[in-house]
Protein backbone atom coordinates (compact mmCIF):
# COMPACT_ATOMS: atom_id res chain seq x y z
CA UNK A 1 0.00 0.00 0.00
CA UNK A 2 2.75 2.39 0.98
CA UNK A 3 4.71 1.39 -2.08
CA UNK A 4 1.72 2.23 -4.20
CA UNK A 5 1.41 5.60 -2.54
CA UNK A 6 5.09 6.27 -3.09
CA UNK A 7 4.82 5.29 -6.73
CA UNK A 8 1.81 7.52 -7.14
CA UNK A 9 3.65 10.47 -5.64
CA UNK A 10 6.66 9.77 -7.78
CA UNK A 11 4.44 9.66 -10.85
CA UNK A 12 2.70 12.91 -10.03
CA UNK A 13 6.01 14.51 -9.31
CA UNK A 14 7.72 13.48 -12.51
CA UNK A 15 4.47 13.91 -14.34
CA UNK A 16 4.75 17.62 -13.94
CA UNK A 17 8.25 17.93 -15.27
CA UNK A 18 7.50 15.43 -18.03
CA UNK A 19 4.55 17.41 -19.23
CA UNK A 20 6.57 20.58 -19.20
CA UNK A 21 9.24 18.82 -21.23
CA UNK A 22 6.70 17.86 -23.84
CA UNK A 23 5.46 21.38 -24.10
CA UNK A 24 9.01 22.47 -24.70
CA UNK A 25 9.82 19.92 -27.37
CA UNK A 26 6.47 19.42 -29.05
CA UNK A 27 5.60 23.02 -29.39
CA UNK A 28 5.54 24.04 -33.00
CA UNK A 29 6.45 27.63 -33.75
CA UNK A 30 3.30 29.51 -32.80
CA UNK A 31 1.21 30.74 -35.67
CA UNK A 32 0.57 34.42 -35.15
CA UNK A 33 -3.06 35.24 -34.59
CA UNK A 34 -4.94 36.84 -37.44
CA UNK A 35 -5.56 39.88 -35.33
CA UNK A 36 -1.87 40.39 -34.88
CA UNK A 37 -1.25 39.97 -38.59
CA UNK A 38 -3.82 42.62 -39.33
CA UNK A 39 -2.19 44.90 -36.84
CA UNK A 40 1.22 44.47 -38.43
CA UNK A 41 -0.15 45.18 -41.87
CA UNK A 42 -1.85 48.30 -40.58
CA UNK A 43 1.44 49.67 -39.35
CA UNK A 44 2.29 52.22 -41.98
CA UNK A 45 3.16 55.84 -42.39
CA UNK A 46 6.05 57.89 -43.65
CA UNK A 47 9.55 56.52 -43.34
CA UNK A 48 12.76 58.51 -43.36
CA UNK A 49 13.23 59.97 -46.84
CA UNK A 50 9.54 59.70 -47.78
CA UNK A 51 7.83 62.59 -49.49
CA UNK A 52 5.14 64.17 -47.29
CA UNK A 53 1.78 65.07 -48.76
CA UNK A 54 0.73 68.61 -47.86
CA UNK A 55 -2.22 69.04 -45.49
CA UNK A 56 -4.57 71.82 -44.57
CA UNK A 57 -5.66 71.97 -40.94
CA UNK A 58 -7.45 74.54 -38.81
CA UNK A 59 -5.32 76.59 -36.46
CA UNK A 60 -6.41 78.01 -33.09
CA UNK A 61 -6.94 81.36 -34.87
CA UNK A 62 -9.38 79.53 -37.21
CA UNK A 63 -7.10 80.05 -40.21
CA UNK A 64 -5.97 77.10 -42.26
CA UNK A 65 -2.35 76.03 -42.02
CA UNK A 66 -0.43 73.95 -44.54
CA UNK A 67 3.20 73.24 -45.34
CA UNK A 68 2.84 75.58 -48.30
CA UNK A 69 1.56 78.33 -45.99
CA UNK A 70 4.97 78.40 -44.27
CA UNK A 71 6.23 80.38 -47.26
CA UNK A 72 9.08 80.00 -49.69
CA UNK A 73 11.88 80.90 -47.32
CA UNK A 74 11.72 77.89 -45.03
CA UNK A 75 14.22 75.03 -45.28
CA UNK A 76 11.68 72.61 -43.92
CA UNK A 77 9.25 72.16 -41.04
CA UNK A 78 9.07 70.58 -37.60
CA UNK A 79 5.79 68.71 -37.16
CA UNK A 80 4.95 67.95 -33.52
CA UNK A 81 1.96 65.75 -32.72
CA UNK A 82 0.91 66.92 -29.27
CA UNK A 83 -2.18 67.65 -27.20
CA UNK A 84 -3.44 69.34 -24.04
CA UNK A 85 -4.45 66.20 -22.20
CA UNK A 86 -1.41 63.92 -22.24
CA UNK A 87 0.77 64.50 -19.17
CA UNK A 88 3.77 63.42 -21.18
CA UNK A 89 3.08 66.03 -23.85
CA UNK A 90 2.38 68.65 -21.18
CA UNK A 91 5.89 68.10 -19.78
CA UNK A 92 7.25 69.29 -23.10
CA UNK A 93 5.13 72.45 -23.52
CA UNK A 94 7.69 74.87 -22.11
CA UNK A 95 10.46 73.13 -24.00
CA UNK A 96 8.51 73.43 -27.26
CA UNK A 97 8.38 77.20 -26.85
CA UNK A 98 12.18 77.22 -26.55
CA UNK A 99 12.66 74.77 -29.41
CA UNK A 100 10.36 76.91 -31.57
CA UNK A 101 12.82 79.82 -31.41
CA UNK A 102 15.68 77.59 -32.54
CA UNK A 103 13.51 75.89 -35.16
CA UNK A 104 12.58 79.23 -36.70
CA UNK A 105 16.19 80.37 -36.68
CA UNK A 106 17.26 77.15 -38.38
CA UNK A 107 14.49 77.46 -40.98
CA UNK A 108 12.36 74.55 -39.77
CA UNK A 109 9.39 76.21 -38.02
CA UNK A 110 7.10 74.15 -35.79
CA UNK A 111 3.57 73.15 -36.70
CA UNK A 112 1.95 71.45 -33.70
CA UNK A 113 -0.88 69.08 -34.63
CA UNK A 114 -3.47 67.85 -32.11
CA UNK A 115 -4.60 64.40 -33.35
CA UNK A 116 -6.99 63.14 -30.63
CA UNK A 117 -10.70 62.42 -30.99
CA UNK A 118 -12.66 64.94 -28.95
CA UNK A 119 -15.32 62.49 -27.80
CA UNK A 120 -12.54 60.63 -25.93
CA UNK A 121 -10.55 63.73 -24.95
CA UNK A 122 -12.86 66.77 -24.64
CA UNK A 123 -9.93 68.69 -23.13
CA UNK A 124 -8.32 68.74 -26.56
CA UNK A 125 -10.96 70.89 -28.26
CA UNK A 126 -9.90 73.81 -30.44
CA UNK A 127 -11.13 76.27 -27.79
CA UNK A 128 -9.10 74.57 -25.08
CA UNK A 129 -6.09 74.33 -27.38
CA UNK A 130 -6.34 78.08 -27.83
CA UNK A 131 -6.40 78.65 -24.07
CA UNK A 132 -3.37 76.39 -23.56
CA UNK A 133 -1.45 78.09 -26.37
CA UNK A 134 -2.10 81.48 -24.80
CA UNK A 135 -1.13 80.29 -21.33
CA UNK A 136 2.10 78.78 -22.57
CA UNK A 137 2.90 81.44 -25.15
CA UNK A 138 3.02 79.13 -28.16
CA UNK A 139 4.40 81.20 -31.03
CA UNK A 140 3.76 78.47 -33.58
CA UNK A 141 0.57 77.15 -35.22
CA UNK A 142 -1.36 74.68 -33.03
CA UNK A 143 -3.74 72.97 -35.46
CA UNK A 144 -6.35 70.28 -35.05
CA UNK A 145 -6.54 67.07 -37.12
CA UNK A 146 -10.31 67.14 -36.67
CA UNK A 147 -11.03 64.36 -39.15
CA UNK A 148 -8.10 62.31 -37.86
CA UNK A 149 -6.98 61.93 -41.46
CA UNK A 150 -3.48 63.40 -41.29
CA UNK A 151 -1.83 61.61 -38.33
CA UNK A 152 -2.38 58.16 -39.94
CA UNK A 153 -0.58 59.34 -43.08
CA UNK A 154 2.41 60.17 -40.93
CA UNK A 155 1.99 56.92 -39.02
CA UNK A 156 2.04 58.80 -35.73
CA UNK A 157 0.94 56.72 -32.75
CA UNK A 158 1.45 58.90 -29.71
CA UNK A 159 1.80 62.36 -28.26
CA UNK A 160 4.32 63.85 -28.26
CA UNK A 161 5.85 62.63 -31.53
CA UNK A 162 8.02 64.63 -33.90
CA UNK A 163 8.75 64.66 -37.64
CA UNK A 164 11.42 67.03 -38.93
CA UNK A 165 10.82 67.63 -42.63
CA UNK A 166 13.45 68.77 -45.09
CA UNK A 167 12.29 70.84 -48.05
CA UNK A 168 13.78 69.55 -51.28
CA UNK A 169 13.17 70.25 -54.95
CA UNK A 170 10.62 67.41 -54.92
CA UNK A 171 8.87 68.61 -51.79
CA UNK A 172 8.99 68.06 -48.02
CA UNK A 173 10.74 64.84 -47.02
CA UNK A 174 10.97 63.16 -43.61
CA UNK A 175 14.48 63.71 -42.24
CA UNK A 176 13.91 62.79 -38.59
CA UNK A 177 11.15 60.96 -36.76
CA UNK A 178 10.71 60.30 -33.08
CA UNK A 179 11.36 61.83 -29.68
CA UNK A 180 11.96 65.46 -28.78
CA UNK A 181 14.91 64.70 -26.51
CA UNK A 182 16.21 61.95 -24.24
CA UNK A 183 14.78 63.04 -20.89
CA UNK A 184 11.09 63.81 -20.54
CA UNK A 185 11.24 64.38 -16.79
CA UNK A 186 14.06 66.84 -16.52
CA UNK A 187 14.88 69.36 -19.23
CA UNK A 188 18.11 70.20 -17.41
CA UNK A 189 19.29 66.58 -17.60
CA UNK A 190 18.80 66.25 -21.36
CA UNK A 191 21.91 64.89 -23.06
CA UNK A 192 20.70 64.85 -26.66
CA UNK A 193 18.09 67.17 -28.05
CA UNK A 194 17.09 65.15 -31.09
CA UNK A 195 15.39 68.03 -32.90
CA UNK A 196 18.39 70.35 -32.59
CA UNK A 197 20.55 67.44 -33.62
CA UNK A 198 18.44 67.02 -36.76
CA UNK A 199 18.82 70.74 -37.62
CA UNK A 200 22.56 70.40 -37.23
CA UNK A 201 22.85 67.47 -39.63
CA UNK A 202 20.49 69.13 -42.12
CA UNK A 203 22.55 72.32 -41.91
CA UNK A 204 25.60 70.30 -42.98
CA UNK A 205 23.59 68.64 -45.75
CA UNK A 206 24.03 65.22 -44.15
CA UNK A 207 21.52 62.49 -43.31
CA UNK A 208 20.27 62.95 -39.76
CA UNK A 209 21.81 60.59 -37.20
CA UNK A 210 19.90 59.26 -35.34
CA UNK A 211 17.21 59.53 -37.99
CA UNK A 212 14.66 57.76 -35.84
CA UNK A 213 14.18 57.44 -32.09
CA UNK A 214 11.41 56.27 -29.79
CA UNK A 215 9.92 57.59 -26.58
CA UNK A 216 7.11 56.81 -24.21
CA UNK A 217 3.93 58.74 -24.85
CA UNK A 218 0.13 58.66 -24.78
CA UNK A 219 -1.66 56.75 -27.50
CA UNK A 220 -3.47 58.93 -30.00
CA UNK A 221 -7.11 58.63 -28.99
CA UNK A 222 -9.67 57.36 -31.47
CA UNK A 223 -13.43 57.04 -31.09
CA UNK A 224 -14.47 53.97 -29.14
CA UNK A 225 -16.54 51.19 -30.63
Amino acid at each position, binding site marked *: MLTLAALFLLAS*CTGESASSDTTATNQAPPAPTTKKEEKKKEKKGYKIGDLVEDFELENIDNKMVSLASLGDDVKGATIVFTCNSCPYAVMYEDRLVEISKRAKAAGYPIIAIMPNDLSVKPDDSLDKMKIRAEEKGFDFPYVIDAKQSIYPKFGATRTPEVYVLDKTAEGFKVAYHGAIDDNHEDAAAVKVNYIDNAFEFLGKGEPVDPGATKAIGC*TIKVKKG
Partner: protein
Amino acid sequence: MERYTIITLFFLVVFTWSCNTDGGTRNAPVTDNRSPSEKLKTYDDFSRLESRLTTLSDSVYIVNFWATWCKPCVAELPYFFEVEKKYADKKVKLLLVSLDFKKQIESKLKPFLDKREINTEVVVLSDPDSNTWIDKVSPEWSGAIPATLVFNKDKKDFYEQSFELEELEEVLKGYFH
Protein backbone atom coordinates in the same frame (compact mmCIF):
# COMPACT_ATOMS: atom_id res chain seq x y z
CA MET B 1 8.74 -6.31 6.31
CA GLU B 2 9.31 -3.63 8.89
CA ARG B 3 12.52 -2.57 7.20
CA TYR B 4 10.69 -2.44 3.90
CA THR B 5 8.08 -0.10 5.38
CA ILE B 6 10.76 2.19 6.76
CA ILE B 7 12.53 2.39 3.40
CA THR B 8 9.26 3.10 1.63
CA LEU B 9 8.41 5.76 4.19
CA PHE B 10 11.83 7.30 3.70
CA PHE B 11 11.27 7.54 -0.06
CA LEU B 12 7.80 8.88 0.45
CA VAL B 13 9.13 11.69 2.60
CA VAL B 14 11.92 12.47 0.17
CA PHE B 15 9.58 12.58 -2.80
CA THR B 16 6.97 14.63 -1.05
CA TRP B 17 9.65 17.08 0.00
CA SER B 18 11.15 17.32 -3.47
CA CYS B 19 7.72 17.88 -4.94
CA ASN B 20 7.03 20.61 -2.46
CA THR B 21 10.23 22.49 -3.02
CA ASP B 22 9.55 22.35 -6.71
CA GLY B 23 6.13 23.89 -6.39
CA GLY B 24 6.72 25.68 -3.11
CA THR B 25 8.03 28.93 -4.49
CA ARG B 26 5.18 29.15 -6.94
CA ASN B 27 2.38 28.39 -4.56
CA ALA B 28 3.75 29.90 -1.39
CA PRO B 29 1.05 31.78 0.45
CA VAL B 30 1.53 35.52 0.58
CA THR B 31 3.26 36.22 3.86
CA ASP B 32 4.31 39.74 2.93
CA ASN B 33 2.11 41.95 5.06
CA ARG B 34 3.48 45.22 3.82
CA SER B 35 1.13 47.61 2.07
CA PRO B 36 1.29 47.83 -1.74
CA SER B 37 3.19 51.12 -1.55
CA GLU B 38 5.73 49.64 0.86
CA LYS B 39 6.37 46.76 -1.52
CA LEU B 40 6.88 49.06 -4.49
CA LYS B 41 10.31 48.74 -6.12
CA THR B 42 12.09 51.17 -8.42
CA TYR B 43 14.42 50.16 -11.23
CA ASP B 44 16.62 53.11 -12.20
CA ASP B 45 18.18 51.12 -14.98
CA PHE B 46 16.36 49.16 -17.67
CA SER B 47 18.80 46.25 -17.38
CA ARG B 48 17.16 45.33 -14.07
CA LEU B 49 13.86 44.88 -15.84
CA GLU B 50 15.36 43.28 -18.94
CA SER B 51 16.33 40.13 -17.09
CA ARG B 52 12.69 39.71 -16.14
CA LEU B 53 11.41 39.77 -19.71
CA THR B 54 12.43 36.17 -20.41
CA THR B 55 11.85 32.98 -18.47
CA LEU B 56 13.03 29.40 -18.27
CA SER B 57 10.16 28.40 -16.00
CA ASP B 58 6.76 26.94 -16.90
CA SER B 59 4.99 30.19 -16.02
CA VAL B 60 3.19 32.50 -18.40
CA TYR B 61 4.15 36.10 -17.72
CA ILE B 62 2.12 39.20 -18.43
CA VAL B 63 4.19 42.36 -18.23
CA ASN B 64 2.07 45.47 -18.54
CA PHE B 65 3.52 48.95 -19.06
CA TRP B 66 1.24 51.58 -17.57
CA ALA B 67 1.04 54.78 -15.53
CA THR B 68 -1.54 56.33 -13.23
CA TRP B 69 -1.73 59.30 -15.63
CA CYS B 70 -2.69 57.02 -18.53
CA LYS B 71 -6.47 56.62 -18.51
CA PRO B 72 -6.77 53.60 -20.83
CA CYS B 73 -4.04 51.90 -18.78
CA VAL B 74 -5.95 52.35 -15.53
CA ALA B 75 -9.16 51.21 -17.22
CA GLU B 76 -7.70 47.84 -18.24
CA LEU B 77 -5.94 47.03 -14.94
CA PRO B 78 -8.92 45.10 -13.50
CA TYR B 79 -8.78 42.68 -16.44
CA PHE B 80 -5.17 41.87 -15.69
CA PHE B 81 -6.00 41.24 -12.03
CA GLU B 82 -8.88 39.05 -13.06
CA VAL B 83 -6.84 36.77 -15.33
CA GLU B 84 -4.02 36.66 -12.79
CA LYS B 85 -6.47 35.26 -10.26
CA LYS B 86 -8.48 33.10 -12.63
CA TYR B 87 -5.46 31.43 -14.20
CA ALA B 88 -3.19 31.21 -11.18
CA ASP B 89 -3.35 27.40 -11.53
CA LYS B 90 -2.05 27.79 -15.08
CA LYS B 91 0.92 29.64 -13.61
CA VAL B 92 -0.05 33.00 -15.04
CA LYS B 93 1.97 35.75 -13.40
CA LEU B 94 1.51 39.47 -13.65
CA LEU B 95 4.13 42.20 -13.40
CA LEU B 96 3.05 45.83 -13.63
CA VAL B 97 5.73 48.21 -14.85
CA SER B 98 4.82 51.75 -13.90
CA LEU B 99 6.13 54.60 -16.05
CA ASP B 100 4.87 57.20 -13.62
CA PHE B 101 6.96 60.34 -13.37
CA LYS B 102 9.51 60.39 -10.55
CA LYS B 103 7.91 63.37 -8.88
CA GLN B 104 4.52 61.64 -8.84
CA ILE B 105 5.56 58.35 -7.23
CA GLU B 106 4.86 59.57 -3.69
CA SER B 107 1.95 61.85 -4.54
CA LYS B 108 0.07 59.70 -7.06
CA LEU B 109 1.36 56.19 -7.61
CA LYS B 110 1.71 55.06 -3.99
CA PRO B 111 -1.73 56.33 -2.89
CA PHE B 112 -3.22 54.74 -6.02
CA LEU B 113 -1.73 51.33 -5.18
CA ASP B 114 -2.83 51.48 -1.53
CA LYS B 115 -6.30 52.76 -2.23
CA ARG B 116 -6.96 50.01 -4.77
CA GLU B 117 -5.14 47.42 -2.66
CA ILE B 118 -3.00 46.35 -5.60
CA ASN B 119 -0.99 43.46 -4.23
CA THR B 120 0.36 42.40 -7.61
CA GLU B 121 4.06 43.10 -8.04
CA VAL B 122 4.61 46.65 -9.27
CA VAL B 123 7.96 48.10 -10.28
CA VAL B 124 8.62 51.67 -11.31
CA LEU B 125 10.87 51.87 -14.35
CA SER B 126 12.64 55.17 -13.89
CA ASP B 127 15.04 55.19 -16.81
CA PRO B 128 14.19 58.38 -18.73
CA ASP B 129 16.22 57.62 -21.87
CA SER B 130 13.42 55.45 -23.22
CA ASN B 131 14.84 55.41 -26.76
CA THR B 132 17.56 53.06 -25.47
CA TRP B 133 15.15 50.47 -24.08
CA ILE B 134 11.82 50.57 -25.97
CA ASP B 135 13.17 48.31 -28.74
CA LYS B 136 14.50 45.90 -26.11
CA VAL B 137 10.98 45.40 -24.80
CA SER B 138 9.80 44.90 -28.38
CA PRO B 139 10.88 46.33 -31.74
CA GLU B 140 7.13 46.53 -32.49
CA TRP B 141 6.62 49.06 -29.71
CA SER B 142 6.35 52.73 -30.76
CA GLY B 143 6.45 53.85 -27.12
CA ALA B 144 2.75 54.55 -26.62
CA ILE B 145 1.13 53.08 -23.51
CA PRO B 146 -0.67 50.93 -22.57
CA ALA B 147 1.62 48.23 -23.88
CA THR B 148 1.69 44.58 -22.84
CA LEU B 149 4.12 41.73 -23.23
CA VAL B 150 2.95 38.11 -22.82
CA PHE B 151 5.52 35.34 -22.81
CA ASN B 152 6.53 31.93 -21.61
CA LYS B 153 9.78 30.06 -22.21
CA ASP B 154 8.83 29.27 -25.80
CA LYS B 155 7.22 32.36 -27.24
CA LYS B 156 6.53 36.03 -26.78
CA ASP B 157 3.80 38.37 -27.98
CA PHE B 158 3.67 42.13 -27.80
CA TYR B 159 0.57 44.32 -27.85
CA GLU B 160 0.49 48.10 -28.16
CA GLN B 161 -3.20 48.42 -27.37
CA SER B 162 -5.82 48.47 -24.64
CA PHE B 163 -7.28 45.11 -23.70
CA GLU B 164 -10.81 43.98 -23.06
CA LEU B 165 -11.10 40.97 -20.75
CA GLU B 166 -12.15 38.59 -23.56
CA GLU B 167 -9.22 39.62 -25.75
CA LEU B 168 -6.79 39.08 -22.92
CA GLU B 169 -8.17 35.61 -22.19
CA GLU B 170 -7.93 34.79 -25.89
CA VAL B 171 -4.24 35.71 -25.88
CA LEU B 172 -3.59 33.62 -22.78
CA LYS B 173 -5.36 30.60 -24.22
CA GLY B 174 -2.63 30.50 -26.84
CA TYR B 175 -0.25 29.74 -23.98
CA PHE B 176 -2.24 26.97 -22.27
CA HIS B 177 -1.76 23.35 -23.34
